[in-house]
């Protein structure tokens, strides 16, 4: 049996920092008068970033009153999109792609390794030191370099092996920022063993 619930945890008050307030006003200004609710997703991203990667109820309600919307309308948006987190996340949120290409190339092992490194038993759980939360997501569009994960909605780490994944996480825990991109050193999505075609310039000058 599957039980559905939507119960965001209790949290402290929220308000935009002065810089984010300016940004938020900029987002709202992109839309015509009376259509400011269109900026809701922009503002939610901004609030999520400011709030450490997740949206608390006060943050959601702050955005709602900022845009003159009923809180429930914003809750609907937040709960609809998977990119908004309604539970606290780690400082580094690891999003492992599990869609076909990555799955065929061993994303299950990557997931297992990440959970192990984070010391958590299930997806979405916050690691004890607060450094990690690991989730599985659908296709992130880096199929050629499968398997891969994304960190904090920003950095793609591709061509992973379970060991590589753990290494990256260890580095992240130490506060380092490992180089993003292919972990095998290939450029963008070139073939694994180097170029096989178009190896020389033909015809031309």
């Amino acid at each position, binding site marked *: 049996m599957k039980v559905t619930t*939507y119960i965001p945890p209790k949290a402290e008050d929220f308000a935009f920092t002065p810089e984010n307030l300016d940004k938020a006003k900029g987002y709202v200004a992109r839309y015509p008068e009376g259509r400011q609710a269109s900026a809701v997703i922009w503002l939610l991203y901004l609030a999520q970033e400011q709030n450490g990667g997740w949206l608390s109820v006060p943050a959601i309600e702050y955005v709602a009153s900022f845009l003159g919307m009923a809180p429930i309308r914003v809750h609907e948006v937040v709960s609809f999109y998977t990119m908004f987190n309604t539970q606290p996340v780690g400082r580094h949120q690891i999003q492992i792609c599990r869609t076909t290409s990555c799955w065929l190339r061993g994303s299950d092992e990557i997931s297992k390794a990440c959970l192990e490194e984070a010391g958590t038993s299930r997806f979405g759980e916050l690691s004890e030191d607060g450094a990690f939360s690991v989730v599985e997501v659908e296709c992130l569009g880096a199929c050629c370099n499968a398997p891969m994960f994304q960190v904090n909605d920003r950095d793609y780490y591709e061509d992973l092996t379970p060991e590589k994944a753990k290494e990256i996480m260890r580095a992240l825990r130490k506060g380092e920022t490992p180089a993003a991109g292919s972990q095998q050193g290939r450029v963008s999505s070139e073939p694994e063993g180097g170029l096989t075609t178009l190896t020389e310039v033909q015809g031309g000058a």
Partner: protein
Amino acid sequence: MPKVTIDGREIEVPAGITVLQACEMAGAEIPRFCYHERLSIAGNCRMCLVEMERAPKPIASCAMPVGDGMVIRTDTPTVEKARNGVMEFLLINHPLDCPICDQGGECDLQDQAMAYGYDRSRYEENKRAVSEKYMGPLIKTIMTRCIQCTRCVRFATEIAGVEDIGMVNRGEDAEITTLERAIDSELSGNLVDICPVGALTSAPYAFTARPWELRKTLSVDVMDAVGSNIRVDSRGREVMRVLPRIHEDVNEEWISDKTRHARDGLSRQRLDRPYLRIDGKLRPVSWEEALTAVAERLRGLSGERMAAIAGDLCDAESMLALKDFMTGLGSENLECRQDGSKVGSDSRARSGYLFNTTIAGIEQADAVLLIGTNPRWEAALVNARIRKRFLQNGLPVGVIGPQVDLTYETVSLGDGLDALQALGRGEGDFAEVLRKAERPMLILGSGAVARPDGAAILSLAREVAESFGMAGPQAPEEWNGFNVLSRAASRVGGLDLGFLPGPEGRDLEGILSGAEQGEIDLVWLLGADEIDMSRLGRAFVVYQGHHGDAGAHRADVILPGAAYTEKNGTYVNLEGRVQLGRLATFPPGEAREDWTILRALSEVVGQPLPYDNLGELRQKLIEANPLFGRLDEVQPAAWEAFGAKGEVSGAPFALPIDNFYMTDPISRASPTMAKCTEIFVLPKRAATGTEG
């Protein structure tokens, strides 16, 4: 007008309607869950699929506008299969708990599964479960039964104007929620009616009766002056529930929570036998003793030393009987406006106390001025109409008096008379709005007319109405934008039959001060509980009514009468619409229909009233005012003089109702209304510091 062919029949339909509506017009029944005539279109249940020629697959008829030359089929195997399929999908996660579901027997899903579904399920997987949600004291939720039609979300957002319900999560996890907040709307009970399944059911009615056990009586409501059409469902001697009945010009298909849920007050605090005060204590007596005691008191008493006050819930018949009885004894001290309202004081002109625009007429208005009123609490369905109009054309609404959340945008113009006077002089932005409006209207609440200078305010409002072309010579033809918002179901009926002080008679203030000073020896309270009982002095008080409330507490004789569900009575709503309330159950114990009590007493007194049955009484009613003979019609009232020039006080308008859920003896006796008060009213009072 587009021509469409439905199941081989060509019909002409109005442009702009949907295929579903066209099919209905052509007589083809289309099953549906999410579609509702009065709500916006969602198109998410897919039950209304029909086949359209040249369309590659079935179309959702509720969301497809008709076009000229469309060929629609609703009876093909494809359509049948589509319905089967949708039904099967809807039932995948729907529990099989019909035997313990309160919706059973009146459930859209149950009925349509019977009519359009497969006869068995092919799913063996576990069903999903959804946690219950809190929606307040009136609505019980069993969210596992929800089929995500979103009617409740749309009702709350559009009709009720409280954006408290929404659908969170997505896909299989989608669920309706309120985020654990009670729905603070006086129309929330309607959510139960629009829910097509048993997800939202009536909490006070839970597990009490099955629809097929109930006797259904078509009646009208008396909790406010709107005269909502209701159906009273009773079992044995108890009213089990009250449901709305469709009347497009009055309540559409909604009723307020008080109308719906105050019914449990009907079986509490009831006066079920006569009482007589002996040695300072009320003691049960027989009818004979009670009537003799009253007759004894009346003997030799001159008419000017007695008075009668009619309460808020009285039917016209009992008021006429009491009026005839009192006039027979030579008394002119009659009063049907127990709130002290001055409407009808100086002139019997109907336009001076009616809601002239009519409730349906609000939908033609293009500017509204509210004076000393909170329509949301005084007449919830009038407020729903104003909101409906507001959503249609952004109706500008100006408010003179206290500011309250009316579920639409309002402009505050001030809190007292000076604001009205300024408007009368044409000052301010809102005067400009009113001047430009083609069909402006004003609504005068009892906060403005139920005060000593009420007649002067009435006259002032009349001048304002004339100056802005709301009514009178400058108004558009057949438009009268002058409205008095009555609060009591009996008020317009009482005014129409002249339950008012005669030329030498005393009005409410006169009666009360007379009683205080010992000039009035006997006061007859016909269900009147909202007056200041401490001012009745040493007068002998006869209380005729159905609930042990303030009046019965003060009374010297109690004559137990019938509540609105227990008698056949005529009520006139605030528009002046005459409607019949019908007997659903019999009065408890020895209580009797009110007019028969008066008829019996008149016999004892030796001045028998000239009617022996309800038919004869109704005949007299029509003789007293021919309007009573015209059921369910609104007769436009001629624009005549009313109100009186006079001194006005600068005091701001005060709102008469401080608790929507308890305004009359029935709702004050209702445990459900007490619960609502606790949850919706008391926290707000505590927050504003107006409590004690």
